[in-house]
């Protein structure tokens, strides 16, 4: 277990029950810093639940979650975020009545050290403006910067979702089905975007689009019924018989 020292994220024996239902069953996962890791699995396997546990949306029933070797199990989401872990949501989760620019700007504040400040004008915070502009360029939403986020097209909202997730500059990024509902073209754009924005960071992504998964991931874990049944580089997963049975089906992509 010497790898632990450099692991960006470690899950050990993480379990989650909802009432009597065991949704996550003793999951162990080690994700080294800088890796792009995909989690795939059938619907209802518990992928989003796993994200919820990692990001602090709710505490695990048992087991431990470590970020950079430090335990975070049971701490609220904002503290986990402050530790440098940020996530996106399967269902778009942005600030609908605020402009695109404000969405991004709010997401940069904490990381740049501007906490609960109410004595300085936000417009006067140079670093915030600079970072927000940068992100806006990156996600390609600069042209619609002033429209309320709720009025954006679906694809743009998904891009904004990613933008909000990465704006704080977190070291570990969790993306939950970032390309769901996108056309092939948009998916391609999104993948490029993801590739760009997670440069040098640790990425964990949940996806059903196998072209995305296989194109992006360094390593893949397969979650079935709350258990990781396989974990390894793409080629190995593609060849795995159990995985085929449980997830990919015979004529896999």
């Amino acid at each position, binding site marked *: 277990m010497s790898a632990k020292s450099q692991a960006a994220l470690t899950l050990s024996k993480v379990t989650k029950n909802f009432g009597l239902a065991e949704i996550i069953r003793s999951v162990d996962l080690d994700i080294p810093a800088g890796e792009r890791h995909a989690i795939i699995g059938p619907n209802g396997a518990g992928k989003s639940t796993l994200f919820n546990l990692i990001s602090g949306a709710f505490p695990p029933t048992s087991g431990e979650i470590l970020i950079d070797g430090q335990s975070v199990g049971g701490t609220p989401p904002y503290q986990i975020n402050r530790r440098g872990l940020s996530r996106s949501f399967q269902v778009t989760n942005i600030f609908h009545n605020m402009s695109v620019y404000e969405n991004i700007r709010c997401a940069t504040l904490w990381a740049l050290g501007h906490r609960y400040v109410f004595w300085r004008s936000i417009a006067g915070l140079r670093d915030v403006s600079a970072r927000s502009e940068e992100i806006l360029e990156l996600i390609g939403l600069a042209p619609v910067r002033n429209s309320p986020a709720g009025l954006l097209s679906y694809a743009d909202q998904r891009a904004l979702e990613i933008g909000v997730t990465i704006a704080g500059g977190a070291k570990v990024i969790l993306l939950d089905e970032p390309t769901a509902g996108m056309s092939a073209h*948009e998916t391609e754009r999104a993948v490029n975007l993801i590739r760009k924005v997670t440069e040098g960071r640790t990425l964990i992504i949940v996806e*059903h689009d196998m072209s995305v998964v296989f194109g992006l991931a360094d390593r893949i874990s397969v979650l079935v019924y709350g258990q990781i049944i396989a974990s390894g580089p793409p080629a190995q997963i593609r060849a795995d018989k159990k995985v085929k049975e449980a997830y*990919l089906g015979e004529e896999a992509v």
Partner: protein
Amino acid sequence: MLEVSQLHAFYGKSHILQGVDISIGGGEVVSLLGRNGVGRSTTVKAIMGEVAPRGSIRFKGWEIAGLPSHRIARLGIGYVPEHRDIFPDLTVRQNLMLGMKDARAEGRWTIQGSLDMFPNLAARAEAPAGVLSGGEKQMLTMCRTMMGDPDLVMIDEPTEGLAPLIVRQVGELIVEIARRGVAILLVEQKLSIALDISHRVYVMGHGRIVFEGTPADLKANEAVRKEWLEV
């Protein structure tokens, strides 16, 4: 059975549908293809009365444009929306019960039958539907709509966000629906499924129908695919 002609629709000022013509015969499976944002969902919503339509929509000979949705549904059109609008606080079983138009009106579909078909749902029959995973929700939505025993169902992007295996299951369910004599209007991104199970396809672009034909026609027509579907 369904005859849509010169259908227009607006969101505020933006003119989304600019004269859509579609027709579907009894028991026919028809796909509506097109890029994101061309207005396929809007078409379906307009037929269902969720978006105010202009133009003519005839179903079984009646003009239904402008009717409230519940009357349209009662005439025999089922609708499976894009975003899996299950009722999160109700149990799976209650969701299914609500699909029925009257308390004892089970037709070609029964609650038990649906649960049998999807063991995942059966296991959670008494759980609030809100906790289902994305795929389970999709199944539930489709089954729920079928409980109303429609003669035509419009299914909007049923495979979005589904694992490959489940996508297959959905495909099978659609085939099963068709087998029982229900006409289907399928809105899909995943070309392979759509082309496999449809009798006819429409391709939409810029708020209009730009192509109409059999799947084979479409496969043969590279130009349309390049220009309107980008595959």
